[in-house]
């Protein structure tokens, strides 16, 4: 009988597993994906999509207008994202408080948990001499037209830029263990020290027995069962919500599956006469940091895409497609990330398959269109001959579905991270986000996980 079973190893599960393991708890960690490391992460873009993501690369909403990228690997999303670590601002926390009724959603209340996480990871704030040409053009144009921008802060230890390393390669997992994923930052050393982790194990049903919880799972396709005094669900918005839905908790928790948001991202490419090589060096160092855009509900990110993804983002094929791809090295890219309304719903159909309703509301559309227009101005102002706005929307930040709140009719998880009515079932991942913060969610996921870890250790739950 384990004290705790932690399901999922992303920014939340990795942090909690690390803290409980260090505290001496008898824990088991379950992960649906495989354990990979810097030697075994995929080395090609195609292999990355196939091997690291659910659905063989991408999942869709029911209308197939939005694609979601959801990872399946030890370390979860933190393996493939850019590890951009920002604290939330008062706007985000005030909106969370208003929606959830949870009064500790403040920067002051979470400061010590942010501090703990930031102290544990190697952080780097970019500087002017680390910008590539894509970033230089973005910031020059922002300065001219009066859009405020700032340098990003990334979790990284040694990216070997002085030796010519290109960080776009780490979108398939960092081959240097520089990126501060929950694997490199927490789990790698814990696994070496004996952390009990079982991979390729997908939990299919949660049975609550009062003082204990039984988990039914498929391990490489074979049924297995585990039992613990407590469980911590850390499968992210889709994973955690799916486990609760398919275990029948919707009857007691009417809000289960609701309030899904995802910061939909829309990329626009600018074609320049000069060679840009936007995929070289640090390929994401700056973003808009403009209070006006923050109030308007969107931000601009200076990004780029590897070839298959870039090809996918342009809807056309044939000669038109080839003309665009021929100019790949002369393209820059900016995306608008919309702070979307939490109008989505996560469901499970009668075959046990996830279905995602994600209406793109009038407000979302207005924010996207305004952002795109500003991007076009930024690009043409700096000399872009042509601007290509991709029609595709991608959701990378999967949030909500099991939201936190004081009212069990409108939320799933209480302010102490317990599933309403279940004293030994905890959730602290992005599924508890009451609404979209409009800020990269990773650091706050880890801060919330740190708060739960501290709570569990202090309460001595089975430790």
């Amino acid at each position, binding site marked *: 009988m384990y004290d705790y079973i932690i399901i999922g190893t992303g920014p939340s599960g990795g942090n909690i597993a690390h803290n409980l393991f260090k505290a001496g708890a008898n824990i088991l960690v379950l992960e649906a994906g495989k354990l990979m490391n*810097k030697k075994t992460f995929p*080395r*090609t*873009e*195609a*292999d990355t*999509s*196939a*091997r690291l993501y659910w*659905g*063989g*690369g*991408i999942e*869709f909403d*029911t*209308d*197939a*207008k939005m*694609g979601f990228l959801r990872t399946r690997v030890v370390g979860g999303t933190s393996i493939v994202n850019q590890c951009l670590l920002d604290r939330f601002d008062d706007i985000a926390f005030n909106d969370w408080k208003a929606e959830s009724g949870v009064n500790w959603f403040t920067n002051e209340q979470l400061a010590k948990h942010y501090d703990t996480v930031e102290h544990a990871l190697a952080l780097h704030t970019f500087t002017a001499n680390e910008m590539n040409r894509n970033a230089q053009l973005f910031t020059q144009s922002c300065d001219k037209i009066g859009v405020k921008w700032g340098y990003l802060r990334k979790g990284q230890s040694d990216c*070997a830029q002085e*030796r*010519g*390393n*290109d960080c*776009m*390669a780490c979108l398939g997992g960092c*081959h*240097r263990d520089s990126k501060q994923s929950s694997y490199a930052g927490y789990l790698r050393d814990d696994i070496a020290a004996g952390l009990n982790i079982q991979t390729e194990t997908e939990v299919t049903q949660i049975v609550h027995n009062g003082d204990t919880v039984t988990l039914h799972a498929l391990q490489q396709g074979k049924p297995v069962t585990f039992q613990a005094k407590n469980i911590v669900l850390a499968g992210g918005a889709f994973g955690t919500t799916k486990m609760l839905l398919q275990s029948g908790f919707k009857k007691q928790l009417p809000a289960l599956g609701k309030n899904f948001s995802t910061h939909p991202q829309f990329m626009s490419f600018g074609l320049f006469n000069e060679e840009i*090589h936007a*995929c*070289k060096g640090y390929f994401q160092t700056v973003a808009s940091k403009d209070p006006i855009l923050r109030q308007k509900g969107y931000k601009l990110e200076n990004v780029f895409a*590897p*070839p*298959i993804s870039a*090809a*996918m983002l342009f*809807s*056309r*094929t*044939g*000669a038109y*497609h*080839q003309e665009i*791809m*021929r100019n*790949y*090295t002369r393209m820059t890219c900016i995306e608008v990330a919309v702070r979307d309304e939490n109008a989505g719903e996560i469901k499970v159909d009668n075959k046990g398959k996830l279905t995602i309703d994600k209406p793109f509301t009038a407000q979302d559309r207005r924010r996207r269109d305004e952002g795109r227009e500003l991007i076009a101005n930024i690009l043409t102002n700096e000399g872009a001959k042509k601007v290509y706005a991709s*029609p*595709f929307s991608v959701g990378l930040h999967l949030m909500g579905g099991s939201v936190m709140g004081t009212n069990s009719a409108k939320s799933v998880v209480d302010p102490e991270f317990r599933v309403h009515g279940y004293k030994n079932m905890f959730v602290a991942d992005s599924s508890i986000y009451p609404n979209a913060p409009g800020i990269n969610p990773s650091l706050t996921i880890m801060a919330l996980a740190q708060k739960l870890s501290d709570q569990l250790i202090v309460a001595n739950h089975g430790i």
Partner: protein
Amino acid sequence: MASNYLSNSALKAINRIGDLMIPRNGEFPSFSEVGGIAYIDDLVSYAPPADIKDLNLLLTILAFMPNFVLRWLLNRMENAMESSGPLAPIFRMLDVGLRGLIFSCYYTEKIPASYTGKKPLDIIGFDLTRVED
């Protein structure tokens, strides 16, 4: 060319659709010339079994369609983002699914030795440096 997951007809359909999406044009070789489809199992083997079954069925049907039908289908797919109606989501999913497979087999480092021309990644100038210690 053989696959443990897709039928010969399905592979034939991918090559035909691939050549319509990426024909030989200037320095770009056609999709089938490059031959990246030889490594398609590396991609398909990670997809859910039910999706592989559906893909096989769809591609086998498409393999028997004349080119003008495939061109019509590609046109519907390309315009699906702006389309409405009950079939629009199906065309959108088809669009992403088929283009995903074809671009993944084309803009790739995995190309058979039998292809001796310039690789598509080299043509577009994609060149990532990995410094590994």
